[in-house]
């Protein structure tokens, strides 16, 4: 394996036992930093009867209290304004503001120093290098460049790698496609929803086949689609390009990535992050592969507003296989499988919206868009699935296949409604395809990053 395969040929091939030593020492360092520089963290640990000195082994880490997003909301809009007392640096050291999307409630503000932004782009550099980005690439980034972190750090990382970056900011979709064509862009970063949307617009509104463009790799983030095999296949088929998954979050950082081998999972950057998987029922830390649980994550080097044992609510599982790329960073099988707060009980069965997407996108003849509505019919739950038929496809040829596959993959029956191609809502960035009307107030999915 050539050292050119890796962004950091030492860290990425460090044996797991040595990675754990590194993680433990870095965990102690960030814990001490937070304890001595943030009133919020000091109070949190004091209330648990712990100081950093009490953490003397890797096993002790789980004693440290977790941080929930609601706790971060609770401290905001207080001094030092607007971040509150989790801030570990003087306000004048903060050089960048971002916030979470806030679709589950009050947005969480994220202060970063210039060093933190260097760190953000460093983490993204691991991602892009592993996915084959090199200085010869011309990278087109079609996102809104605003208060959401999205692809900002991807932009800076691509620059750091030596790529030429084209910011596709406020252009509309057709203008972006024309610019990609005009400049022979070779790579792109966007949400899966927008990758499919761009392909649709190019092909059906502009008469441009995306496969005829020069895009050869696409990095996705913000939605689970690039980890859902049927959605990934659709994107790859539409663009004639490799599509890679990546996961990060505003409060966390860019913590995992698919490498160029596409191993059906993502590597956790274990040099920069400590990932623990917690059993949803017992709360015990899961070490063995193949058992799903909730991710508790620590960003080991993020300084202004540390992320220590953050309850991300992402559902993940360790993979039993090592990746043939040679990285010792462990794989999470299938990427992020869902979110603990997304999984809903319908008719007594646990339903993950991602499993419906997997089925719909696997059926040729159905369009990319769909919508799921859960409501009550009398006392019983009902799931309505709206799908689009591609032109000249007959409903009778699809209906039974769709119903059977849904039953097989989700153990549930659906009221299926077919619509003409192009009639369901289109999304420009992140989609809102799942609606649970049983709740008094509909809570939309919190989006990452």
């Amino acid at each position, binding site marked *: 394996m050539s*050292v050119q395969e*890796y962004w*950091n*040929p*030492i*860290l990425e*091939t*460090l*044996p797991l036992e*040595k990675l*754990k*030593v*590194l993680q*433990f*020492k*870095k965990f102690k360092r960030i814990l001490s930093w937070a304890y001595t520089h943030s009133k919020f963290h000091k109070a949190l640990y004091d209330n648990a009867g712990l100081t950093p000195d009490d953490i003397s*082994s*890797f096993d002790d880490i789980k004693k440290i209290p977790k941080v929930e997003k609601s706790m971060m909301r609770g401290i905001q809009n207080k001094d030092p304004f607007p971040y509150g007392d989790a801030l570990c640096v003087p306000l004048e050291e903060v050089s960048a503001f971002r916030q979470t999307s806030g679709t589950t409630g009050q947005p969480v503000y994220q202060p970063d*120093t*210039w*060093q933190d*932004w*260097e*760190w953000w782009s*460093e983490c993204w550099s691991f991602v892009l290098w592993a996915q084959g980005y090199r200085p010869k690439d011309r990278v087109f980034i079609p996102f809104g460049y605003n208060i959401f972190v999205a692809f900002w750090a991807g932009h800076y990382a691509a620059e750091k790698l030596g790529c030429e970056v084209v910011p596709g900011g406020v252009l509309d979709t057709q203008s972006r496609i024309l610019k990609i064509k005009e400049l022979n862009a070779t790579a792109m970063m966007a949400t899966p929803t927008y990758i499919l949307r761009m392909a649709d617009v190019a092909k059906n509104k502009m008469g441009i086949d995306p496969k005829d463009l020069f895009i050869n790799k696409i990095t996705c983030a913000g939605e689970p689609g690039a980890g859902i095999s049927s959605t990934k296949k659709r994107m790859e088929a539409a663009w004639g390009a490799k599509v890679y998954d990546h996961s990060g979050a505003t409060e966390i950082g860019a913590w995992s990535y698919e490498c160029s081998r596409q191993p059906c999972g993502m590597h956790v950057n274990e*040099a*920069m992050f400590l990932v623990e998987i917690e059993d949803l029922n017992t709360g015990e830390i899961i070490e063995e592969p193949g058992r799903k649980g909730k991710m508790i994550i620590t960003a080991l*080097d993020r300084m202004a507003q540390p992320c220590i044992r953050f309850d991300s609510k992402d559902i993940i599982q360790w993979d039993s296989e090592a990746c043939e790329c040679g990285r*010792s960073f462990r794989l999470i099988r299938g990427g992020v499988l869902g979110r603990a707060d997304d999984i809903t009980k319908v008719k007594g069965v646990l339903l993950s919206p991602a499993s419906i997407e997997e089925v719909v996108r696997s059926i040729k003849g159905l369009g990319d868009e769909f919508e799921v509505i859960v409501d009550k019919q009398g006392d019983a739950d009902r799931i309505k699935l709206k799908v689009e038929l591609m032109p000249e496809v007959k409903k009778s040829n699809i209906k039974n296949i769709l119903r059977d596959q849904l039953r097989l993959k989700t153990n549930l029956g659906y009221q299926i409604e077919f619509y003409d191609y192009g009639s369901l809502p289109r999304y420009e960035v992140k989609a809102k395809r799942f609606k649970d009307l049983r709740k008094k107030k509909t809570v939309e999915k919190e989006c990452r990053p």
Partner: protein
Amino acid sequence: MKNFSNLNEMNDKILKVKQFLIELEAMAIEFPAISKNSKRALASTKMMELNISDIVELDLHDSI
């Protein structure tokens, strides 16, 4: 794990660069063009530390 014979040498140079930048920043308090660029360069230097110095400096034979 890949082996690099010049890892310590690279680390020494990173730490020297860091020291120079700290000194430069301190010298240039009344010269924003130097102090602010030094500070920014220190942030980049920190990334080199995270990539190499942590490994060199930490005794990876420690037990956990």
